[in-house]
Structure formats: C-alpha cells, structure tokens
C-alpha cells in the first residue's frame, strides 16, 4: 500500500535547515492499522504529509499502491488524494459555513460524482459514524467528538484505500477518543488501511502495528503478527511484543 525508502525531508529557512525526516523507510501493507508515536517535532506530521501527497520530499523513493509518486503533477497528486486517501485532522478542519452534509460532500464534488451518487455516499458515511440525523447541523452545533466523526465520514465517503489520521483524538476528551478509536478499528476491519499518529500510548497499543519515530527516523516498532520476511530490508528494528 505504502512503501517509503530512504526518504529525507529538509525544511530550509533563511537561517536554519531542519532535517524533519532522515533516511526514513517504512512499509505499510494493505489492510494494516499502524499507530505512529514519537516526541513532538520528531517528524510524524512530515511523514504523514509526504505519505498523503501533501508535501514533496527531497531524496528517496515513495510508492503508493505501486505507483512511484515523485515527479507527478499537482493535478495528478490532487486526484490521487481525492480518490485514494482520506485525511483526518487534529482540529477536524470542517468548513464552518457548511453543514455536515455539505462538508462530507466536499471531496465528492471534486471527484465529479453525480448528485444521486453523492447523496447515497454521504448518507451511508454518516450512517457509519452515527451522524445521519445531524446532517443538516453546522459544525459549531456539534460536540468535538461529533465533529471528528463527521470528518471521518468525509474522509471515508469516497472509499479511499488509505486513511491518514494525524492526532485525531488530540482535541477531544478521553471518552470521545476511545469512541473514535473504536470507529477506526471498525473501519480497519472493513478493509481500509489506517495510519494513525497519536500521543496516547494506550490508543496506540490497540493498533496492529506501532511505529516509533525519533528525530526523523523510525526508531523501533512492534507488530501483532510477525512481518513478512524481507519486507523491511534496510531497517534493523527491535522486535517488541505488545506490553
């Protein structure tokens, strides 16, 4: 699904160069549920942005679904984001002027689906997150947890193979966080690959795999099942059992 080899990303400002990722390699298999942890500033968001085609990288190779994404035009990258990737953001990023229905509709309109198609997808996505009865509410009329569920519906309505969630529970209370995690597990069980960045180790432990990033590199990871042989060439990970 996602295969990064030796990726580096350097942010240059007038005075300083920040090596956000250095020789970063990671593979995520289709259907996997990977939780990414690491200290603040270690490069988690940078990794997610590159994985989600929101940002370019400087060196290395990245294949998404077997396609080498370096050198793709902005229009093609936009289309790949639209069709293959669902994003969930820490601060939900719902459009405040639009009701929940129209928010979920945003990526579907860019996709060019017919009106009836869109209405069906919106209804079933909102069903999944339990917000169908709230579809004509504005984001501000919903709680944080509900808003994040609406954002999940928006990410899923286009049936992406890959769901990228950067600290989706960072702005909600712990009860809501567990509900969102339940929802993500359910979604993963239906076949969607998920990469989740979180600070909450308890939540991270519920994923199939954990990846820990320190200083722009994968420092270690564990997995519920042993990875297929030869998948992680170049990495020397310490295998750890779930605590």
């Amino acid at each position, binding site marked *: 699904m996602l295969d990064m080899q030796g990726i580096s990303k350097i942010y240059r400002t007038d005075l300083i160069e920040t090596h956000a990722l250095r020789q970063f390699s990671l593979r995520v298999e289709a259907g996997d549920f990977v939780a990414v942890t690491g200290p603040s500033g270690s490069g988690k968001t940078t990794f997610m942005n590159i994985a989600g085609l929101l940002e370019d990288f400087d060196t290395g190779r990245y294949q998404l679904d077997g396609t080498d994404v370096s050198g793709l035009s902005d*229009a093609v990258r*936009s289309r790949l*984001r639209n069709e293959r990737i669902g*994003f969930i953001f820490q601060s939900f990023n719902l*459009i405040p002027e639009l*009701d929940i229905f129209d928010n979920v509709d945003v*990526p579907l309109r*860019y996709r060019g689906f017919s009106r009836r198609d869109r209405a069906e997808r919106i209804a079933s996505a909102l069903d999944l997150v339990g917000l169908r009865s709230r579809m004509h509410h504005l984001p501000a009329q919903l709680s944080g947890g509900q808003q994040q569920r609406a954002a999940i519906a928006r990410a899923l309505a*286009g049936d992406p193979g890959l769901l990228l969630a950067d600290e989706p529970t960072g702005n909600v209370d712990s009860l809501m966080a567990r509900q969102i995690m339940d929802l993500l597990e359910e979604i993963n069980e239906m076949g969607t690959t998920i990469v989740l960045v979180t600070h909450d180790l308890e939540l991270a432990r519920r994923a199939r795999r954990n990846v820990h990033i320190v200083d722009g590199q994968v420092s270690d990871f564990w997995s519920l099942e042993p990875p297929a042989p030869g998948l992680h060439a170049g990495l020397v990970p310490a295998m750890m059992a779930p605590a």
Partner: protein
Amino acid sequence: MNWNLRPILVAIWRSPTGALLVALQVALALAVLVNAAGIVQQRVQKVGRPNGMDTPNQFVVAVSGFTREFDYTAMLATDLAWLRGLPGVVAASVTSAVPLLDSGSSAGIRNAPGLKAGRQANIFEMDEQGLAALGVRLVAGRAFSAEEILPPAQGNQALPQILLTRALARVLFPDGDALGRQVYDPLDRPITVTGIIEHMHGNWVDWDKLDHVAIVPRVPEGPQALYLVRTRAGERDALMRRVEEHMATSDPTRLLLWVRSMSSIERRAYLADRNLAIFLTAVTAALLLVAALGIFGLATYNVAARTRQIGTRRALGARRGDIVRHFLLESSLVTTAGATAGVALALAAGYWLSVTWQLPRPGLLHLSTGVAAVWIIGLLAAWQPARRAAAVPPAVATRTV
C-alpha cells in the same frame, strides 16, 4: 461540469455582511455608470456635432464707436475694405451675431400670410461676403450681391429676400423645395427665399432649433460692430495678431473690444457640456474603482481568513484550478447580486432623471454593456486573490492549528 455553486451560495448566505456591502458598491457603481453613460454620450455627441462652418480658420473682431465724431458707416467701409485687402483673408463680413456666441435675435417666420405665429428662426444680418465668411455651403440659390445689402434697419423695414438653412426650410415647406417661395414677416410682408444653406448653427447651443437660421441682407445697427473673418488654412493666428494690432489704433473714434478665434468661441459654448461629461466620467470611474477595490478587498479577506479551509480542500482533492474557480465564482455571485440590484437602481434613477431633468433614459444597450463591464471588472479584481488562494500549499491543512 460541476460548478459547486450551491455550497458557495450557502457559505455567503451564512455570513453575508461583507458580501452585502460589496454588492451595494457594485449596485451603486452600475446605476451611476449606466445613467452617466447615456448623459456623457449625449454630451459628447453634442460637443462633437458639426456646425457647418470653417471653424479652424475663422475669427471675430468686436469694435464699438464711443466719441461724438464716430461715423458708423464710414468705419464699416474702412474696416471691411482693410480686412478684405489683407493677404490671407478669404472673406470678411459685418454680422449682427456670431454662431455659438450666446447673443442674437430670433423672429417668427410664417409660411403663409395671416398666420398668428410663425416658425422661430435665429436671424443673422450679414453683407454680401456673409456666406463666404461663415464658410457654409449653399445647396440651392445664390448669395447676396453687394447692391442688395440694405442699410441698418430703420423701424420695421421690409426685406426683399432671405437665406434659410435647410432644416428651417424643411419645417416651413415640408412639402418640398423652398427656393423661390415666399415667407412672411410678422407684418405679413412677403420675403423671397433666394438660397438654401446646407447646415449652420445659430447662437444658442442648448436650443433644440439651433440649426434653424435665416440670413438677411442688411447691415446691423451700430455703434457696435462684429466682423466675422475667414482666412486661408493655417493663417488665422498670424492674421488675428495683425488685425488686433491694427484695429487697436487705426481709428481713434472707436474701441477695439476683443478679437477671438471661432475655435475658442465654440469651446466656450460647450464648456458646461464638456465639464459635465468629464465630471460624470470621473465620478463613474471613481465609483467603479471603489467597487473594484471592494471586490478585491472581500476576496483578499476571504482568502486570508480561510487559509486552512483552502489547505483542507486541497488535501481533499481540489486542484489549483478548483480553488481559483471557487473564489472567482464566489466573487462573481456577489457581483451578480450587485449587478441585479444595480439594474433595478439604474432603471429607477433613470426614470427619476428623465421625469425631473428630461435626461435620456438608459437603454437596453447601456444596461447590458454596464452589467458586462461590472462583471469583467469584478473578475479582474478577484483574479489576484484567487491566484493567491490557489498557491496555498495543501500541507497547511495539517500544519495550521
């Protein structure tokens, strides 16, 4: 193609204040533009209409006798002989009035005896070089000869002949040729029409019968005299200086009042029209600029305020072109709302202006051109902010809290 119109409209609807203000500016600018365009067009046409004369090569001299020894007839003879003898002078005539110079007389000319009222005509008294000095074209008949020029009017003297402009001849004789026909003065005395002038303007630029002019063969009354002088092309200015120098001192019994070119007289006559056109154009341009700045400001504000939203849309699959279109569409909706209100306002203002001031009502052409102009201005004003929106990187979605 999916224009994504509804969500944009909904978004405007939910926070309408800025959009309303800008739409109002657009409406106001359009209403003024449409009405001013009609008035300006009318004034420009008025200022530019032909007066039938040889304006660039004409000037006028005004003199006035002021001592007891002053002899009006002798002065005319001397001055005209001198003027006509000047190399470069094509013709010179004494005249009772100067076209486009706001002082002259009119009289009712009848096309049949016994009528109570006639057709109002601007009357010019000129001599045998009158037509040549005016530089107007005779389309029928002949000019006056020297022997036909009558001395200054004593009481109510009868006139044997008269020249009419074609416009005046047409209203007097709508059935056909006026040449050789009789017109009648207020005392019912017949006057023969001996010539038809193609076109010329009289004294009052705001009179709707400005081209209803009649020329009679008579020396105007003194002691003031106006000489209309026509020169060869390019020699006017030199001759004006020469005439001014000479006439200031040639005859101590009279004063040289002024010497003015026909061009400057014409310019002065249309000054108010020209100023109105310039003023209205400037006001309209200013209002359009304000509206354009409003559209630009609103779009710039929207782009700045929604940076994260733009990044999110990009993350969700919007291409740069989708973002440009989003903001141009949003801006166009505001312009369209403003233009719709503006058309209504323009029609209402036009109705009021036409009733109160008899000004021309804006036509369909003015309205549609105005709407198109406002629309294009709106698109141009929103263009740069829309481009800036498209340049917002998608990573903003995850980097902005």
